[in-house]
């Protein structure tokens, strides 16, 4: 029996690096320090896995060898005019780097889950930058913590305890030394932890941020209510913001997915920039998948852009709305796709998912997903962070090393190894 300490959790953007895993006979027997989502994954991940590569035939998916599967995927990609590689946010940076290389080799689009989570954050960031910090700084120093349009208790269950209000920092140890504010359109499991909960009208975040900037900069505003809140409440919140020592805004999809999208982020960053006149203030996006930040970093190192990069011209071209996977599918331009560690059929709007199903596409994933059930080729992979090691970037862009705690089943390889095989095949086909 082996007890492995400091295992890095491969699930959400918190990338907790203190999980203790007990392994016996290549099986996980016990996990410690994990949240409910993480414990569910570590103890159950092996129960529903894809047993072997599959190919679609007469409406069914039948097993084939890995070599055949790799060859079929290579052919689909090479024969396409405008192929796309999509996903990789649930994979290692090493696999992500190879994914970008593959997109370059086939002259296609490389995009990732950012497009449907924090894409608008990246767009807002292009306009106004992002005054940010690490989660360690928040833990040690922040006395005002604002969660805006996010629900950490359900989406990032250990965020409060490890990095924010409930953590024991070096200079802020007790809960009473910090104030927590939640701004959301609905009550959630997180709101009961807050000192102040501002429940706003859906789609009115931009109005609230703009009103706060007016109050902070000009001291008054001629309105009776903003975003469904009485003006006294808004003023009370402005006072909290102005009077803290180190403030942080964590924001989620409540800002990026609703009306205003990147303009909401622009307004949030502008608010934070204004707040630095009175206090130290930073902003961090609550990234969902554990290595979506890594995918943005890696794609940016290799192409200059963080997502939605079109390499079909022989140089990187970036224009979300034009080159984003969602949009090239929406317009019916993409004619083949390789989906890695992602499930777009489950999460894209139905009409867009349907367009994906009309073209040949392959899926690399450890377990059956909604997308894998409809794919032309499926290649099972090892679970990164459990059966394969690699690097991952936490939501604050701090890199951490994922551990391998178990051997994958025979014949099951990591994303990194599978993408290498496809690349090699394509290069040999092209001579």
């Amino acid at each position, binding site marked *: 029996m082996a007890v492995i300490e400091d295992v890095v959790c491969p699930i959400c953007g918190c990338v907790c690096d203190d999980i203790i895993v007990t392994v016996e006979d290549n099986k996980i027997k016990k996990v410690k320090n994990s949240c409910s989502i993480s414990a569910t994954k570590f103890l159950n991940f092996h129960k529903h896995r894809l047993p072997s590569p599959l190919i679609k035939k007469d409406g069914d998916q039948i097993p084939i060898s890995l070599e055949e599967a790799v060859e079929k995927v290579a052919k689909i990609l090479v024969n396409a005019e405008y192929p796309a590689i999509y996903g990789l946010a649930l994979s290692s940076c090493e696999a992500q780097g190879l994914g970008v290389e593959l997109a370059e080799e086939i002259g296609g689009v490389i995009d990732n889950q950012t497009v449907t989570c924090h894409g608008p954050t990246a767009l807002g960031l292009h306009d106004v930058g992002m005054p940010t910090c690490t989660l360690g700084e928040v833990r040690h120093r922040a006395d005002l913590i604002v969660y805006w349009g996010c629900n950490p208790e359900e989406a990032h269950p250990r965020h409060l305890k490890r990095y924010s209000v409930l953590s024991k920092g070096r200079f802020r140890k007790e809960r009473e030394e910090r104030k927590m504010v939640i701004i959301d359109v*609905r009550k959630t499991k997180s709101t009961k932890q807050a000192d102040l909960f501002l429940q706003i009208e859906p789609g009115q975040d931009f109005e609230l941020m703009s009103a706060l900037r007016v109050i902070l900069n000009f001291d008054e505003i001629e309105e009776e209510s903003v975003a469904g809140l009485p003006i006294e409440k808004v003023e009370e919140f402005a006072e909290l913001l102005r009077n803290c020592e180190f403030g942080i805004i964590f924001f989620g999809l409540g800002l990026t997915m609703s009306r205003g999208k990147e303009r909401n982020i622009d307004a949030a960053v502008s608010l934070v920039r204004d707040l630095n006149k009175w206090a130290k203030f930073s902003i961090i996006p609550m990234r969902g998948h554990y290595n979506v930040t890594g995918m943005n970093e890696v794609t940016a190192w290799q192409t200059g852009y963080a997502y939605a990069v079109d390499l079909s011209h022989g140089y990187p071209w970036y224009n979300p709305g034009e080159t984003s996977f969602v949009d090239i599918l929406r317009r019916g331009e993409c004619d083949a796709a390789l989906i890695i560690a992602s499930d777009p059929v489950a999460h894209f709007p139905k009409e867009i998912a*349907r367009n994906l199903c009309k073209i040949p596409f392959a899926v690399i994933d450890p377990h059956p997903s909604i997308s894998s059930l*409809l794919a032309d080729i499926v290649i099972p992979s090892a679970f990164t962070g459990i059966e394969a090691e690699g690097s991952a970037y936490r939501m604050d862009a701090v890199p951490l090393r994922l551990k391998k705690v178990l051997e994958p089943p025979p014949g099951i390889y990591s994303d990194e190894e599978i993408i290498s095989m496809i690349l090699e095949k394509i290069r040999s086909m092209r001579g």
Partner: protein
Amino acid sequence: MRGFKATLLTGRSLKQGMGKEVSKTSDRYKESVSICEVHPNDMENAGLKEGDLIRVTTKFGSIVVKCVPSDHIPKPGIIFIPYGPYASSLIGISTDSTGMPTFKGASAEVEAAPEEKVLDIKQLLTNLVEE
């Protein structure tokens, strides 16, 4: 029994998070994403009970899910469906040139659907390909 109009929000839930870590083909995942949280007042006005089937329709699609009362819904007229293939059936495809569809804020109509059933994930996919 009267239907009602509502604004549809979609988002994460802990159950959906745990369900997807078991498997997207598991019953646990299906149970976690094929629900719609409704304000108790809307349920009362529409004569709905917990677990009743409802049909939610937007201009982009229509789906049958299970009705769950929730005190997390801020006020009548707002409904919530967790991310997943049921919610995705109701979302529009425009991205306003950002790459991001508008997952939150679609106008929806809700009506009781006692005679219908919640499609399982495989049926949902068959419809996706064949419709």
